[in-house]
């Protein structure tokens, strides 16, 4: 049995639709039109113990909804899911003591008190024995380099420091599963990097299972071997990060360093010319024809140097998102027929 088992999970919301203007507001007092928005449309997923999985997808794709379902904050409209044998939305204490959810934009600590005080409360809520609590807190705050800030009111911490405190609070009870919703949102590059480093170290050491949503490709590239792309409430891809490029990108980027006397003429016969900065030329070439095309180029032109690269991951994923959007456009319109 897998640690997380999800079968045919669906969730739709009712969203109040208001036309523009005062008259519409008046009408809204008596009867309201609701749209049914399907945030998650049938997800099947298995996650094994010790995996570090990233959920990628455009805004509103259903990533956060999936995390909310798995942490029991919302009930599904259809389908089933178990996490460590528990049905999350039953919200049993036995389950709630074994996972943690950290949302980058939500604050769980007592705003006006030092983080240490919030940690004490967590110790009680999660029934953490004294010595274990002390050890874990020392370990976490040393790893995250926030030990000196324990006595400072949370409201006086920077966003990055606060996020580190949130993570500490979430991990105090040594959860088996950690759900992270955009943990690095709004943080500067250094803070992002520190949190990535910490998560990587902690996950490898404790072998806990982490599900992460993020918009920063760097987070994902640094942390997750497995990537699940969710768009329009469905899983569009499940596999390795490198696999995304293989599956969705049919191109390679080739950079040529032309010889001194060579002019960049007629290169567009081999592929799309992306950039010309003599003596350097960047081409996009069909993946299947790379070897053959390069041989031809070397034959006909004087080339000092060349490199072949996969297109940047961000570009590929942006392309995947927009493809999915186009493909589902008609389907989405059908889902949004107003219901009274």
């Amino acid at each position: 049995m897998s640690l997380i088992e999800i079968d045919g999970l669906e969730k739709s919301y009712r969203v109040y639709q208001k036309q523009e203007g005062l008259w519409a507001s008046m009408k809204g007092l008596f009867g309201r039109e609701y749209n049914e928005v399907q945030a998650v449309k049938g997800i099947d997923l298995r996650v094994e113990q010790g995996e570090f999985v990233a959920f990628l997808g455009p805004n509103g794709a259903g990533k956060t909804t999936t995390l909310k379902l798995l942490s029991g904050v919302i009930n599904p409209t259809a389908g089933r899911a178990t996490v460590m044998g528990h049905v999350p939305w039953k919200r049993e204490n036995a389950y709630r003591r074994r996972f943690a959810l950290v949302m980058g934009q939500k604050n769980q600590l007592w705003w006006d008190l030092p983080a240490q005080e919030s940690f004490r409360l967590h110790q009680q809520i999660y029934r953490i024995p004294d010595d274990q609590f002390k050890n874990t807190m020392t370990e976490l705050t040393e790893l995250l380099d926030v030990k000196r800030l324990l006595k400072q009111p949370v409201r006086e911490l920077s966003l990055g420091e606060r996020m580190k405190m949130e993570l500490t609070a979430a991990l105090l009870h040594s959860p088996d599963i950690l759900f992270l919703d955009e943990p690095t949102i709004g943080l500067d590059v250094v803070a992002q990097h520190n949190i990535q480093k910490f998560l990587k170290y902690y996950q490898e050491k404790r072998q806990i299972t982490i599900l992460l949503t993020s918009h920063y490709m760097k987070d994902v590239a640094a942390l997750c071997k497995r990537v699940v792309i969710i768009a329009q409430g469905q899983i569009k891809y499940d596999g390795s990060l490198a696999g995304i490029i293989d599956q969705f990108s049919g191109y390679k980027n080739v950079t040529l360093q032309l010889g001194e006397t060579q002019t960049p003429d007629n290169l567009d016969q081999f592929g799309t010319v992306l950039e010309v900065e003599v003596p350097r030329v960047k081409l996009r070439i069909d993946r299947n024809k790379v070897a053959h095309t390069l041989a031809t180029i070397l034959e006909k032109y004087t080339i000092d140097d060349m490199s072949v690269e996969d297109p940047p991951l961000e570009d590929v994923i942006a392309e995947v998102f927009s493809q999915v959007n186009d493909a589902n456009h008609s389907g989405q319109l059908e889902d949004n027929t107003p219901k009274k």
Partner: protein
Amino acid sequence: MANAVYNQMLTWWVILRLGIEERLVYRGDFALGTLMRFLPIITQIFLWWAIFESIGDGDQSVARIGEYSYSDMVAYYLLTMLTRAFSSMPGLASGIAGQVRNGEIKKFMIQPIDMIGFLLINRIAHKLAYYSVAIGPFALVFFLCSGFFPDRPDMTTIAAFIATLLMGFVLGFFLEASIGMISFWFLEVSSLLFVYMLFSFFLSGHMFPLDMLPAGWGTIVDFLPLKYLAYFPAAVFLGKVPEDELARGLLIELGWILFFIAFSRFAFWRGLKRYSGFGG
């Protein structure tokens, strides 16, 4: 089993401690807010003095409103102030509504902790912090105004008075928590709260003693929960509640407490169901 109880007590203690600490963070605002509440006393005493003087044609000592003389009225007013220090719950319902609206309520769904229990302990913490500062001014006011009070009541009356104060706290908490739970359906409860405050102001006895009301009204008010938030404890202290009525009153109050405990629990349960069904 004993261990579980001990752990639960320890959790409550930590919540209580944090609640008090949080209250004491903004020392200046807290102290000023606490002390400012005593200012209206002076204006109220003068107001009643003017009213009684005009009724008594220049001699307030002979004037009566219902069964109340001027000193009865001042004593009553001071006692309702004390009572409301127990039963009023500033920010409780609106706090719950705020948590529902901004999603902070998720915390209580994810962590193994009961929200109503948490809020109750937190409220006790607020009250304790408040009393620790307010006890000085309260003692001073009651000392200066001791002439307005009748002779010291007997021990039974004092015991009954303390019981009604504590029950007033519990009733006030669960009543306003129940109103807060309505925010699961309406999101914003401030207007509802305003209506409640308005009714409460008149029907709890905060504005004037309820036994001044005409007979028909009196019966209605007798069976409403509001009178236990201000009038009832004051009336008990002033010896206006005969023994058989006292027992009946306490029983009705207990009934209301149980009702609002059950109602707030039920509304919370249904509300979470609704929240997890639609929102998130």
